[in-house]
């Protein structure tokens, strides 16, 4: 995107002439006013207020009052929140690794299919992607429950002595997070994989490499940067899951996102919730910046 030579590289042939006419260009900016106003007013301003509120003083019974104190930030420097943060990073990271390891070959096979089958798969993946955490949590808690789940079926065919409840547990939460992140990972990987030059694996096959060897020595290294991007994006996405830990996990599995919501909605301590959110955002921004750096390197490399 940044390869345009001049700031006014207009696509229309006579546009350069137009661009020099000042009133004209001012009027053309009108198209930008409304989106800028909406995004500024309803996205930038809320973040600004949230940043300010994170330093405010909490008022019992009301929401908050202006102040400047670091108490909200100091408060989560405690073993309880430290543990929650470490656990959030650990389970989100683990789920991101599992998801990427499965989604990468899945997407690779998907992009090698005929167009018709690809479209059917994509519709399905999009449908799964659009499911909210509520429905995913509800579905998995049903699937892993004692009365209506898989264990019930296994008991039915005689593989289990009695039906068991597999939720809430760490495994259930991990499964749920993997489910949440999977379709997302596929869509992040899809563009890069479908643009992979098909001659590359073909050449490798022609030179006698097995499909497995081709996959690991050609496809994976070529797309290393996309894999890293997918990993980080799924990680950030999972970090935001706040409902699955409540439905599929035990209280000790509550992530930072759960605690933020809990503080904001049930404890009515918005300043503290804001401080945690700002902190979580900084962690995420650092990770996104890392992703972008990988992208830059890729562009500089060839």
């Amino acid at each position: 995107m940044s390869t345009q030579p001049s700031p006014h590289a207009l696509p229309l042939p006579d546009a350069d002439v137009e661009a020099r006419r000042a009133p004209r260009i001012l009027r053309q900016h009108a198209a930008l006013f409304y989106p800028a106003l909406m995004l500024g007013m309803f996205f930038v301003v809320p973040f600004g207020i949230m940043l300010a509120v994170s330093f405010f003083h909490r008022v019992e019974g009301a929401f908050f009052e202006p102040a400047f104190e670091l108490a909200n930030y100091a408060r989560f420097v405690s073993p309880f929140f430290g543990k929650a943060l470490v656990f959030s990073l650990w389970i989100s990271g683990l789920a991101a690794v599992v998801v990427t390891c499965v989604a990468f070959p899945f997407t690779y096979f998907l992009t090698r299919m005929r167009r018709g089958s690809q479209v059917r798969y994509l519709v399905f993946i999009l449908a799964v992607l659009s499911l909210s955490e509520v429905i995913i949590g509800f579905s998995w808690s049903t699937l892993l429950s004692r009365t209506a789940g898989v264990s019930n079926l296994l008991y039915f065919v005689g593989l289990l002595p009695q039906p068991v409840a597999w939720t809430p547990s760490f495994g259930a939460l991990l499964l749920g997070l993997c489910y949440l992140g999977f379709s997302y990972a596929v869509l992040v990987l899809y563009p890069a994989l479908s643009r992979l030059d098909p001659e590359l694996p073909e050449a490798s096959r022609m030179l006698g490499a097995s499909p497995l060897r081709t996959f690991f020595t050609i496809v994976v290294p070529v797309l290393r940067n996309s894999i890293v991007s997918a990993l980080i994006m799924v990680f950030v996405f999972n970090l935001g899951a706040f409902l699955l830990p409540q439905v599929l996990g035990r209280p000790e599995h509550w992530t930072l996102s759960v605690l933020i919501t809990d503080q904001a909605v049930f404890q009515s301590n918005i300043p503290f919730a804001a401080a945690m959110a700002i902190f979580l955002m900084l962690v995420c921004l650092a990770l996104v910046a890392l992703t972008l750096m990988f992208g830059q390197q890729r562009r500089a490399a060839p």
Partner: protein
Amino acid sequence: MTHPGRNVFMALVVLFLVAPLIVVAGVSLNAERQLLFPPQGLSLAWYVELFLQPDWLNAVKNSLIIAIFSAALAVSIAFPLAYFLWRHRVWYAKALFALGLAPFMLPPVITALGFLVFWVSTGFYGQMIATLISHAIFFVTLPLVTISLGFESIDRQLIEASQVMGADDRTVFRTVLLPLVRPYLISGYAFAFVLSLNEYIVAYMVAGFTVETLPIKIFNSLRYGYTPVMASVAVMFVLVAIVVFGLIARFGDLPKLLGAWSERET
């Protein structure tokens, strides 16, 4: 070339993705007011109940109003921005574009809390308009990406040709640009619509106790007493998503919309 290993792998992944949906569909057909699988007896009572019980019907209504208008608002923000960026690649338009992508780059909890604080400060906390505008901003990324793709895919020679034939800017916009971008515009709307319908955390934080949407209603029933109605809602959601995305695939180029090169270019 057939690969048994590959097919088994794909089948396992699909099974993993479908399994919970099958169980939920089964539960929704229970004759008894219990969550049982395999279902005991078959009945569609829980689907009927969704549209008969006033509290569920109210949630359906809220969700639909919010989804319909917030998706339209999102498109109305995304379209001029995408158009402007396509015509003038200036830094501030690019910055605004990046801002529009931000909601998808951050954990939703953070954006949701930002909205909560904003609506509390402006006094609209707990009102439907707050949920509606929040959703529009939250999902602006989707129409922004699809409409930008639409503009990028326009063959510039078409515009030149129409200008040579004497069309002015407005005519070009109305008769050439708009028809070419329309499929991308519609897909952008559809994406935002379906995701708004399913969205939980923003709706919950902004007006969870007063404006009950379907996902909020499901979560509340999940906490305070199970009913198979929630299963039937989940099934409806999956069906709506499949129908909408199926329609996009039918009338548009889904792989291209998701970032693959089109057939023509490969």
